[in-house]
């Protein structure tokens, strides 16, 4: 609609007199104030956590807590670096699992999405419903039997095993996104390639893949976030401390030290480190994140 129309409608709604103008400018400031208030509330816990992580050990344990650090120190990070098996081990476990989950998700759903979008497979609808099985059964309920199976396959305490669980959690979403992406590829390109003598695999790699890169980024993004943040599956599958992921070792640091006094500074250093990749990726790939969320929620 035109700006003029919007203007005149606004005026109709609030009245044209002095009062109306006053009301409009007041609303503007109220909205601004409300927005700022909400931003402060939402950011305060994150800021508090980061600030707590750079306080000195003594200050991080102060009662009552100080709002702004009086002393600055990286002690909490240094302590976390050597905590138990050491931060590098836990970071590597978390990143390793997440990257395997990304790889598994793409390796499974790129060909499957291609097949579902293009090929005349007998019983395709039924197979698709079967592939979405994880939608109707929460993975939390399946962890007991999966644990039994993984115990036999020697996949407990294994990053591969955990990555399989994280892939399974995300599979319906990944598959749905990939199938839609392949359906949106213009088929004329593929027909031309076939006439030029390409087989279906060459068509997939050379013609389709470049067009579905955004969908692959979305799938990878969500696989990473899910895997990086997942807690219960890791808690069930990993019982040797050197195979813990980051959330597990932090939760362990919380319970263990609660007997002899929690190291709050170190705990918030851990929280800060585990938040950084998620927020960083979100800020870089915001567009993919929101579109993926919208697509996933109405699947």
């Amino acid at each position, binding site marked *: 609609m035109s700006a003029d129309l919007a203007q005149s409608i606004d005026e109709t709604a609030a009245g044209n007199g002095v009062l109306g103008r006053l009301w409009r400018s007041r609303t503007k400031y109220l909205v601004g104030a409300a927005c700022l208030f909400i931003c402060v509330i939402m950011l305060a816990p994150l800021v508090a956590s980061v600030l707590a992580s750079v306080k000195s050990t003594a200050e991080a344990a102060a009662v009552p807590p100080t709002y702004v650090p009086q002393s600055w120190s990286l002690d909490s990070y240094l302590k976390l670096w050597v905590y138990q098996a050491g931060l590098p081990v836990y970071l590597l476990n978390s990143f390793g699992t997440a990257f395997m989950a990304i790889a598994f998700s793409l390796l499974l759903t790129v060909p499957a999405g291609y097949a579902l979008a293009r090929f005349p497979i007998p019983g395709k609808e039924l197979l698709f419903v079967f592939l979405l099985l994880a939608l109707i059964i929460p993975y*939390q309920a399946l962890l007991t039997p999966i644990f039994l199976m993984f115990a036999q396959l020697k996949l407990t305490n294994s990053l591969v095993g955990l990555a399989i669980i994280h892939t399974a959690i995300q599979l319906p979403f990944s598959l749905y996104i990939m199938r839609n992406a392949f359906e949106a590829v213009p088929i004329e390109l593929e027909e031309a390639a076939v006439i030029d003598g390409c087989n279906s695999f060459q068509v997939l790699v050379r013609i389709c893949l470049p067009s579905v890169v955004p969908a692959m980024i979305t799938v990878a993004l969500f696989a990473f976030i899910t895997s990086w943040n997942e807690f219960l599956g890791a808690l069930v599958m990993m019982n040797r401390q050197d195979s813990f992921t980051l959330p597990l070792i932090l939760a362990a640091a919380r319970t263990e030290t609660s007997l002899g006094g929690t190291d709050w500074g170190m705990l918030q250093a851990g929280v800060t480190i585990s938040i950084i990749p998620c927020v960083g990726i*979100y800020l870089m790939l915001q567009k993919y994140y929101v579109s993926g969320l919208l697509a996933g929620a109405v699947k």
Partner: protein
Amino acid sequence: MSIYSTRSNRLTGLLYLAPALAFVAAFTAWPLGQMLWVSLNSWSLITPPKFIGLNNFTKAFNDKQFWVSLGFTLKYTLLITPILMIGGYAIALLTVKNTPLRRFTRAVVFVPVVIGLGASSLLWYWLFSTDYGFVNRLLLDFGLIDKAVIWLGVDADRSNWAIIVSVVWKVLGFGMILFVAAIQAIPPEVSEAAMVDGASPWQRLTQVTLPLTLRTVLLVTLISVIGSLLAFDQFYIMTAGQPQNLTATSVFYVYLNSFPYLKLGYGAALSLILAVIILVFTIIQMLLTRRSHA
């Protein structure tokens, strides 16, 4: 579809689909079948499984802690869902226009959605800690309380509210972003017509905006209800089920039985009961989304 509709392509297609089919068969369908079978057995991992029919289910029916957990989970769900819906919708209404400040506010409200529930729970575990946390410090500084309150692990209701605050902070942006998309999808002519007709902002909300975004509201409500019924991380980290397992949610109780206690058969039976409850909500959700495609 001409180039793909040959007979040999039926097989090729199946070949591309095979890895995903095998994966789902192995890691979703098989465990599901396994769960049904294990739930009919008494099994502690050390001794071999013993078939006991539906005994695990009758045991659950008479298990006080099972009902306490289910009741607590329902209470948590009933308390948090309206807060999330009304709060998310209010912020969506406030920020729905695309001005820089409103866009920024949306981005900020959404940030906690991407961080892990484990990390956010550890963060709030500290904020709510009695002596070291900012919540008590702020309340004391503003004179709202006289002495530090023990938020977590002593009183079930107080723990529940503390956790609700932390989870609202964490997931409010999820509903907001979906509501914003739904409100923005309302055709401008519709809201213009309402304005020309002289409808007040409240009338426009209740008679235009809300009805036209009702499906999204219902959908987000269901997603949120399902998520709340499956709550675990926040309770495991912030209260560990204390006091006396009064804040142990349903998933928590399944976890306790299956793993620390190793009552695998009973754990599977509890999982199955929980899965059936969730399934009811999932089916409603699927019916809603199917209609949204029509």
